[in-house]
């Protein structure tokens, strides 16, 4: 009975010690306005930019349209270009007027309806239209090409329908019916917003955590803590718990903005959202701890966090770029990027709903990566005391 009491007492002391530690860390966290800035202001800015400014949907692109010979047919086609919602058309007679504008980036492409267009069209000898694009911006270049092709194709289709009465011909013999599931209108905001939530949690979990703890190493307060009866596991847990909570709060803010301000649909369950986020914060925080323990210096920690967490979350996670399209060696690297598992799950959660097999697999992998980070971090922390 005595033994039971002692062990109970020890538990109470331990719990108190732990809560004292967590309280200290929380105060420290709240005192510095920069952590609030990164956890609450940056997410808002990021979501606003993705919500309003930066979408991958191109709006109207400015192009030059050269009609070398004014004919009713050329005018008809040029009206199609001017009516397109993808183009802002500047009209001219001579290509040379536009060349310099294309170099300076004032226009993104030049479309040329050549002098022989009408006569070739009448003679049915495959009339030509030229599309010159600025290849230095490859995305915009292919957009201009594709949309120009689209405008021409639909113009041909309309003309042949008009002429169809006598010819008996219709539009294309085989038509393609496209259906985009989960995001019918292909709003890029809908997949950018879930992705940016992962970025924000990476910043809070890895960058902020690694900085704070690296500072403690720099100042020697970490060693001071280690001299106390606190075990190193308690110490690490006490350090990261407030950041875990901060990460969850920051994610909640993002979701509220995404759903209520940008009307991104949320088709999954709140439970799945929090489980996935919690599972993601494990490797994110573990990485932050590991970085700080390995560098013990704020400058190095910030650089490492940037290189190993922030940029991969942006570029190697499938957020902006397809992982399947990357070279195989780089695809292998993506396997250790935790955001790679979170982002598809979040996109699914928002746009498709709960698909548990996918979520569970993602959570298992994230927890696995996280536990490796924690083991490594605990090791390099222990080594330091010897």
């Amino acid at each position, binding site marked *: 009975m005595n033994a039971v009491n002692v062990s109970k007492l020890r538990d109470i002391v331990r719990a108190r010690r732990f809560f004292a530690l967590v309280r200290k860390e929380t105060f420290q966290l709240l005192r510095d*306005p920069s952590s609030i800035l990164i956890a609450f202001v940056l997410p808002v800015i990021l979501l606003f*930019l993705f919500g309003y400014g930066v979408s991958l949907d191109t709006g109207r692109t400015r192009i030059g349209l050269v009609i070398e010979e004014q004919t009713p047919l050329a005018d008809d086609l040029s009206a199609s270009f001017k009516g397109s919602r993808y183009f802002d058309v500047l009209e001219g007679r001579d290509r040379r007027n536009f060349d310099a504008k294309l170099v300076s980036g004032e226009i993104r492409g030049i479309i040329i309806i050549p002098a022989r267009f009408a006569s070739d069209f009448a003679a049915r000898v495959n009339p030509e239209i030229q599309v010159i694009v600025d290849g230095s911006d490859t995305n915009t270049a292919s957009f201009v090409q594709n949309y120009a092709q689209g405008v021409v194709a639909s113009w041909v289709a309309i003309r042949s329908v008009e002429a169809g009465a006598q010819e008996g011909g219709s539009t294309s013999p*085989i038509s393609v*019916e496209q259906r*985009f599931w989960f995001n019918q209108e292909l709003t890029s905001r809908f997949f950018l917003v879930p992705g940016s939530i992962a970025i924000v949690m990476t910043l809070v979990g890895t960058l902020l955590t690694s900085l704070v703890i690296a500072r403690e190493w720099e100042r020697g307060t970490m060693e001071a803590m280690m001299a106390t009866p606190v075990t190193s596991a308690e110490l690490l847990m006490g350090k990261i718990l407030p950041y875990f909570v901060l990460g969850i709060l920051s994610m909640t803010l993002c979701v509220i903005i995404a759903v209520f301000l940008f009307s991104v649909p949320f088709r999954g369950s709140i439970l799945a959202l929090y489980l996935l986020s919690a599972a993601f914060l494990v490797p994110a925080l573990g990485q932050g701890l590991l970085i700080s323990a390995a560098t013990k210096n*704020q*400058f190095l920690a910030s650089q490492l966090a940037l*290189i190993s967490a922030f940029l991969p979350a942006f570029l190697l996670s499938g957020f902006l770029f*397809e992982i399947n399209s990357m070279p195989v060696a780089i695809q292998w690297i993506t396997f250790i990027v935790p955001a790679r598992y979170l982002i598809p799950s979040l996109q699914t959660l928002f746009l*498709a709903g709960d698909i548990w097999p996918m979520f569970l697999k993602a959570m298992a992998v994230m927890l696995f990566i996280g536990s490796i980070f924690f083991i490594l971090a605990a090791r390099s922390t222990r080594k330091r005391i010897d």
Partner: protein
Amino acid sequence: MWWTRLKALIIKELLAVLRDPKSRTILIVPPIIQLLVFSYAATLEVRNVDILVLNRDSGHWSEELIKRIEGSPTFRSFSHTQDQSRVQDSISNQAVIAALEIGSTFSRDIEAGRPATVQIILDGRKSNASQIVAGYLSQIVGRLSLETPSGMKTQNTMINVVPRNWFNPNLDFQWFMVPNLIASIAMLIGLIVTALSIARERELGTFDQLIVSPLRTHEIVIGKLIPPMMIGIFHMTMYLLAAIFLFQIPFRGSLIYLYGGGIIYLAAIVGIGLFISALSKTQQQAILGAFLFIVPAILLSGFATPIENMPQWLQPITLINPLRYFLVIIKGLFLKDIGPFEVLHQTIPLALIAVVTLSAAAWLFRRRLE
């Protein structure tokens, strides 16, 4: 006299960053790795596409269509199914990005000259990639449709749209990506190195010593300005060599313009870094402050989306973004061989940003003193 003082400060600043072997490594190795990894990874081209085919037709035309898709280098793996529910599952679980459905009357419709349809179901969660895949598939179908009996008849009225890509004939994505990355990574490193410089001294208490030294305020600013610029120029040179010799990207413009514009760009970056640094009390604030600038700066630079496509009210904000101007310079010099006038046109705003931020930083130092 003033030069000796300044030189001492510059050497001290360089040592502060370069003395520690870990810091030296982190300034050299990761940027190179970043350039390598990200130039290969960051592609909007879509390759190795997995696709599911549900073919209910047993005729010649569906077979031909599938053969053509299989022959296209874009597609990696094909799975066939007769089960509608597998289509649903494969797309939902992201096992495939697209599913192609061919109805049972496909070949008969074509032979009879009736309009035939194929259906493509795509994963809208990846709206970009799936749009590109839809484009590829439509092209293949379009070409096939010209060979059908009714397609043959209309063939001569088809209009050939002849594309010509200036500056980048094959629309090679790396030609676009690498110059963009050079400018962005240079900003990333320059800004963090500088933002930390004063904050670190303040945290360690050495900033007061610097201020009571015989150095004048503008000398301190210059002394803090030059070392990160030297590091930045070193980086740019490294990247430039990698871009030209490793990625084989043509450099068509003048190196003098590039370095001229680059120096002013770095001065603007360092100015912003010093300004952030002067505002912050701790290194943590400085780094996070730098981040608060970097993320929007990259998104609002015209790197990923053209500035003219952003909403009207947002466009004026991009005017204070140094990356915006330097992207035009570096992409222009790499691919377009732009002339001195265009370079100058972009450099003037950079110089203005540099002057404003550096004076603001100097003013803040002095004010902190009182």
